[in-house]
């Protein structure tokens, strides 16, 4: 399309980083949508496939980019699923926020010593922890909710390890 823009208008030129972030965010959103179609016996128990993408971004491009992809995933994913500003959106946002904070803190630890698997497990626990705290404070104001915590934690451990191994293998196979 020929540009007829006058001198006062601006055309946003996406940088290479913008394109990269959009690329990763698209993958994360797709993973989140695929996952939304999988029935779960218990709300909150989900594989968290999108986190594979977040882990790869974290390993390759650092924490700031991981935050971008995660934020885009939560907002765009919820818009596409029709969940924007619904309770599930706030749960996802609080989980994502907590896991990003933990991943940010763990950036101080060498990747040689702590790889994608450990980070994935830590982030999964932070994710469900953040969700549980918000749910307790807002949606189910009763300590009975914590009766389910062991189930959530076991799922976090399992899916954390699986996602971490998947992310590590994907990076092994596609070295940069």
């Amino acid at each position, binding site marked *: 399309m020929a540009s007829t823009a006058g001198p006062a208008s601006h055309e946003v030129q996406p940088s290479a980083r913008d394109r990269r972030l959009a690329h990763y965010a698209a993958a994360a959103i797709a993973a989140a949508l695929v996952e939304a179609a999988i029935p779960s016996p218990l709300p909150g128990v989900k594989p968290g496939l999108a986190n594979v993408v977040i882990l790869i971004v974290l390993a390759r491009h650092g924490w700031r980019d991981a935050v971008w992809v995660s934020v885009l995933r939560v907002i765009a994913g919820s818009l596409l699923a029709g969940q924007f500003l619904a309770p599930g959106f706030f749960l996802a946002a609080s989980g994502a926020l907590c896991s990003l904070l933990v991943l940010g803190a763990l950036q101080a*630890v060498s990747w*040689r*010593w*702590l*790889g*994608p*698997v*450990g*980070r994935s*497990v*830590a982030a999964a*626990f932070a994710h469900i922890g953040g969700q549980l705290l918000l749910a307790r404070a807002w*949606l*189910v104001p*009763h300590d*009975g909710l*914590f*009766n389910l*915590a*062991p189930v959530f*934690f*076991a799922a*976090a*451990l399992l899916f*954390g*390890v699986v996602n*971490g*191994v998947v992310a*590590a*293998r994907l990076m*092994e196979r596609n070295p940069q």
Partner: protein
Amino acid sequence: MTVVRPGDWLVIAAGLAATVATAASQWGQAAPAHAQVRLDGRVVAELPLTGRHRVSIDGALSSRGPTVIEVEPGRARVAADPGPRQYCVLQGWLTRAGSVAVCAPSHVTLQLTGAGSMPDTVAF
């Protein structure tokens, strides 16, 4: 570089420990301490769930017989009741803190009390 690195094992172990510890603390037996028997809402007997006891209560249907509460270490039940439908008797042994057997026709209730009393129902 290996897929699973030393620190990963540490995080996995910590996650496992957290899961087991939460399971133990959340799902461990909330040991009931007492069996509380009420007649018309007033506490008429409070029995420790340590020994064996048998208590007869003359409830609203006392002309047809007493309500008999039986306590064994860690559990209690309504052993007999003159009520027509026997719901509280059929409920059997109560073992968890907070659980209740109600003999409505007799106006008698049996409830286990304890530190970890749980709600009857959580709806949301």
